[in-house]
C-alpha cells in the first residue's frame, strides 16, 4: 500500500517532473515559510482588476474570449480538449483565486526554465502543456486563437504587477511534509466523508442537463498521468486550500495528503510521453516520491491500467 520510496525520499525536496516551476529562484517568495503551510497569509495580496474593467474594444474581445475558454474549455476550445474538465476546475474563480495557481501569479513569471521538458518555456508553451496533460487533449499550435486569447486574459489580469517576482498567493499552497506517510485507507475514509457528496462514490463527479457540475477526479474523463495534479504535493496543496468547495482550509494537512494519495492512486489516461513501458516512463518523467505512476498500490501497478478505463 505505501510506496517504499516515500519514506526514503521525503527528506529530499526533489524538484522533478510536472511540478511548480520555481523560476528566477533568486527572489525568495516572501509568503512561504517552509513550516507553516496552511492558513494563507492575507497581507498585501495582489488584487486582479475587476471583470467589469475589461476594455471595450477589439483587445477586450480577445480577453473576454480567453475568460470564456478558461471557464468553459470544452465548448470554446473543443478541438484541444479530451476530457470533461475546464481550466477553472483547478484554477478557481476563472483563474483569479489566490492559492489556486491564479493566472496573475503565473503570467509575470514567464519565460521560465521547466524541468518538465528541460527548456526555457514561454507562457504560451506553458499553456500548451495544460491542454496536453490536465485537459488530456492536444496542444493548440503556437499563434492559435485559443492560446492568444488565454494569454491576453492572463496579461490583462496581471496589470500592474512586477515582472519576475512570484506574488504571494501564486501557485498552490505548499504543505509541510506529512507526519505519517500518506495512506490509501485513511484517504478513502476522508474521501467518503468530505468529497463523495459532490465527486460521487466512484470519483466520477456529477452532471446535470449534459453539463459537468462536479468534475471527475480520476478515470477516462479526468486529467492524465502527465498532469501536475498527479503529483501528491500539488494535489494536497490544492485540496487543502480549496476543497471541499467553499470550505477550504478545514481539512488537516494529514487529511489533505491522505486524500490526495487516495485520489492519485486511481487509474487515469496514459501519460502522452509514454515510451516502451510504465517503468521506463516512470524513470524518465515520474522519478519522485510525489508520483504514484508506476508504483504498485493494492497489488496493481498504476499506469498499467490506463488502456482499460
Amino acid at each position, binding site marked *: 500500500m505505501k510506496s517504499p520510496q516515500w519514506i526514503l525520499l521525503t527528506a529530499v525536496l526533489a524538484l522533478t517532473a510536472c511540478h511548480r516551476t520555481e523560476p528566477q529562484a533568486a527572489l525568495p517568495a516572501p509568503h512561504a515559510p517552509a513550516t507553516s503551510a496552511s492558513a494563507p497569509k492575507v497581507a498585501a495580496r495582489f488584487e486582479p482588476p475587476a471583470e467589469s474593467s475589461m476594455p471595450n474594444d477589439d483587445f477586450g474581445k480577445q480577453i473576454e474570449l480567453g475568460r470564456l475558454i478558461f471557464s468553459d474549455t470544452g465548448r470554446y476550445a473543443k478541438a484541444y480538449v479530451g476530457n470533461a474538465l475546464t481550466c477553472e476546475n483547478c484554477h478557481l474563480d476563472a483563474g483569479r483565486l489566490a492559492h489556486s495557481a491564479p493566472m496573475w501569479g503565473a503570467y509575470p513569471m514567464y519565460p521560465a526554465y521547466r524541468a518538465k521538458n528541460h527548456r526555457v518555456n514561454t507562457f504560451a508553451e506553458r499553456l500548451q502543456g495544460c491542454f496536453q496533460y490536465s485537459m488530456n487533449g492536444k496542444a493548440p499550435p503556437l499563434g492559435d486563437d485559443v492560446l492568444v486569447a488565454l494569454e491576453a486574459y492572463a496579461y490583462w489580469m496581471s496589470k500592474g504587477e512586477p515582472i519576475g517576482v512570484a506574488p504571494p498567493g501564486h501557485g498552490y499552497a505548499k504543505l509541510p511534509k506529512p507526519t505519517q506517510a500518506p495512506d490509501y485507507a485513511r484517504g478513502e475514509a476522508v474521501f467518503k466523508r468530505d468529497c463523495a457528496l459532490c465527486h460521487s462514490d466512484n470519483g466520477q463527479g456529477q452532471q446535470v442537463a449534459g453539463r459537468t457540475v462536479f468534475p471527475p477526479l480520476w478515470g477516462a474523463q479526468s486529467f492524465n498521468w502527465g498532469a501536475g495534479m498527479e503529483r501528491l504535493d500539488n494535489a494536497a496543496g490544492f485540496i487543502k486550500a480549496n476543497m471541499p468547495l*467553499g470550505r477550504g482550509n478545514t481539512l488537516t494537512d494529514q487529511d489533505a495528503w491522505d486524500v490526495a494519495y487516495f485520489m492519485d492512486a486511481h487509474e487515469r489516461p496514459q501519460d502522452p510521453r509514454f515510451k516502451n513501458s510504465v517503468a521506463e516512463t516512470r524513470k524518465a518523467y515520474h522519478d519522485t516520491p510525489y508520483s504514484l505512476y508506476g508504483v504498485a498500490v493494492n497489488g496493481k501497478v498504476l499506469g498499467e491500467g490506463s488502456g482499460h478505463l
Partner: protein
Amino acid sequence: MKLFAIALFVCCTLIASSASADTPDGASIVQRGNGHGVAPCMACHAADGGGQAAAGFPRLAGLPQAYLRKQLDDFANGSRTNATMQPVAGGLSEAERDAVAAYYSKLPIPPGAPASASSAASVQLAQTLATRGRWPKGVPACEQCHGPAGIGVGDHFPPLAGQPALYLGNQLHAWQQAARRNDPLQLMQSIASKLNDADIAAISAWYAAQPATLAKEQQP
C-alpha cells in the same frame, strides 16, 4: 373444517391489513393526512405540490427523493427548526416519510407563478452571486452546487429555481441564525454567514423568477 376456513380467512386479512399498514400510501397522506393528527400536506404545499409563494410554503413536486426524506428527518430531529413543519414531520412514521418523499419526488413540476420584478441593480447582484460567486470572500457561485440556472443536482443539492422568494430568504436567514443546521459539511451555513441582507433579498427574488426546468436553448 369450517372453523379452519374461518381461521384462515381471519389470519389472511390480518396479514393483508398489517401489510398495507406497513406501506402507507403517499397520495393519501398528502390529500387526507395520516389519520394520526398530521394535516394533509396539500393544505399548505398545494394540490399540485407547487407550494404557496405568498406564504413561503415551498414547492415539493419534483424535488429529489433522498433530499425530501432527509428534510423530514431533520425537522423531526431538530437540526432544522420550524414551528409549522416540525410537528408534521415528527407525526409521520419512518414508512410514512418514505411514502410522501417518494410521492412528491415523482410529481411533475408545475408551472411557476409569475414573479415580481426586481430592480436592475438587484438583478445584476443576484446574477453575479449565482454564476460567479464572491470568491475574495470565499463564496462560490450558487450554480457550482445547485446546477445551471439553479435546477438542482443529484440527491443532495435541491433546486432553487422557481422556489418562492420568501421561502429561499427564510432558509438563508435560518442558516445565519443556526435555526437550520442540517446541511452536509456545513456548506450552506458557511455561505449564508458571508451574505448580507441585500444579497439575500436579491438572490432570493432572482431564483424565484427562474424557470424550474432549463429552457431548451439553455441545454447544450
